[in-house]
């Protein structure tokens, strides 16, 4: 017995195995770091490239207060950023309540039946539908069938539908992350479903839901394809009518039916222009756009980080 085990053991060169294992570990860990480095340097290269190339434009205050122009270096992003804010307003107002409500239903109310399964598969598929297909939906349904035209409202709606799955999934995940004890405590006191949800679950899930909504909106703000599909133009030399002001009751909804352009469309329009100077303008628009989305993502990450800490 004893000799046999000695034989097995003696055949092994432990030092060499451990050396080999350790070198594999080092190789693999460094590979991971290299990939990470590739990702980070891409992000940096992308941002620096835009910032440096677009510098003559984005450092000029006129860039933010001028309409697009045929002369590349006089063109500005006024109509684009105003349009982006208006479209985002519609998107947020539609997508956030709808997505949160659907998410709450799926987590709290849905019984285990075929309807719930259908919704579940449906949401998971919608999250993977290419954004341009949403554009075709809007073109065929809103523009063609309902005759709504290329308006702020249609753009806001299509982006809302597109980010709906993001809001739903993040709502569900934040509800699911709430410890079961909180639910049981609320129900244990005699709360019904609605009370449990409105008084305890929603407040606890709020940071997660807000994070998801911001991530969704940042996705929408940079999205180009579905808006091209509905026929938005990049050359818009006017602003939609203001929602506030004018006559009583000082709120107007005319802006919803106005033509518009948004930042990514504006940038795309300039990218496809042949004159080299438009590249500068496009780069500047890209730099502004990337700052907008990174700021939103950063905010979302910060909110989640703070919620996790407390």
């Amino acid at each position, binding site marked *: 017995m004893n000799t046999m085990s000695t034989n097995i053991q003696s055949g092994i060169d432990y030092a060499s195995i451990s050396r080999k294992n350790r070198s594999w570990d080092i190789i693999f860990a460094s590979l991971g770091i290299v990939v990470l480095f590739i990702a980070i340097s891409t992000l940096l290269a992308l941002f620096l490239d835009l910032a440096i190339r677009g510098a003559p434009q984005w450092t000029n205050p006129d860039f933010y207060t001028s309409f697009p122009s045929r002369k590349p270096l006089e063109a500005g992003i006024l109509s684009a950023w105003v349009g982006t804010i208006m479209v985002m307003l519609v998107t947020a107002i539609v997508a956030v309540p709808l997505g949160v409500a659907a998410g709450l239903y799926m987590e709290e109310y849905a*019984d*285990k039946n075929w309807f719930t399964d259908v919704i579940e598969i449906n949401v998971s598929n919608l999250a993977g539908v290419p954004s341009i297909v949403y554009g075709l939906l809007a073109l065929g349904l809103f523009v063609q069938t309902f005759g709504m035209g290329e308006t702020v409202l249609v753009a806001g709606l299509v982006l809302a539908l597109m980010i709906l799955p993001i809001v739903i999934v993040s709502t569900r995940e934040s509800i699911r992350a709430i*410890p079961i*004890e*909180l*639910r*049981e*405590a*609320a*129900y*244990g*006191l*005699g*709360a*019904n479903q609605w*009370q449990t949800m409105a*008084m*305890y679950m929603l*407040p*606890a899930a709020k940071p997660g839901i807000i994070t998801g909504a911001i991530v969704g909106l940042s996705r929408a703000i940079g999205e180009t394809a579905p808006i091209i599909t509905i026929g938005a133009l990049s050359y818009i030399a006017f602003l939609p009518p203001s929602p506030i002001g004018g006559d009583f009751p000082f709120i107007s909804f005319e802006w919803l039916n106005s033509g518009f352009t948004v930042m990514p469309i504006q940038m795309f329009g300039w990218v496809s222009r042949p004159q080299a100077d438009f590249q500068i303008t496009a780069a500047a628009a890209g730099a502004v756009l990337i700052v907008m989305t990174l700021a939103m993502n950063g905010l979302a990450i910060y909110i989640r980080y703070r919620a996790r800490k407390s």
Partner: protein
Amino acid sequence: MSTDQTSTIQISQSAHQGGQAGKPSETREHWYLEPDGALRARVSNLKFWYADGTQAIDDVSMPLVDKKVTALIGPSGCGKSTFLRCFNRMHDLYQGVKYSGSINLLPEDENLIDLDANIVRMRVGMVFQKPNPFPKSIYENVIAGLKIRGIRKREVLDEIVETSLRQAALWDEVKDRLHQPALSMSGGQQQRLCIARALAVKPEILLLDEPTSALDPIATAKVEDLINELSGNVTVLIVTHNMQQAARISNYTAYMYLGKLIEYNDTNDLFQRPKCQRTEDYITGRFG
């Protein structure tokens, strides 16, 4: 009732056989005391199945004496927590569970299995293993149950907060920081806050599910003192894995094993003169 009669017969038989009165009988499977005094609830032939079909409670019948502390003991997995959670229909939160039999609330004689689960939980309060205060202020926690019942008058709330916190022996410790977050308190304080929260709505029955299992010995002692104080005012049903604790704080004790109720007795009798061999094996540590 009939079980009680059989047990009486068995006692006399064992007295004849061995002449050792008071010794548990090898053959006696169950023994249920019929207690004196008013009852708050009566469980009859309760059975319970989880969604996967496992039967966790098998034909349990038991009284619950009004304003007394009743302890449930037994080895882990015996179904004592499952049994406790039937009393406020906590299982209904998870789909596919099944009950049969009845838990009748007295004196109304309403079977709580047939009532609306949310209404049952309004009448039967519960405190959980791990302290689970809401992430709100101490004050908000105590009045949570009242808000759920639509009670919002400030004077009423203020008064109930004080009486409940006093009842939970927490008032002196927190009266100056009622509006601070409950989660800033120690674990023992949190658990007493949860008891105060449950007491604030004056439950007909207060369920305690191993309320000290997550607490250190000093905090445990405080909660035990509190339960002793409650005896005489509130009907308490407590699950504990700690036999000494059951002996210290309860008036009546029920011993469960494999989903069945083996013995229900006056606490002193159950620990000193158990009527069933299996109870004796458990409490003397020969088993479990």
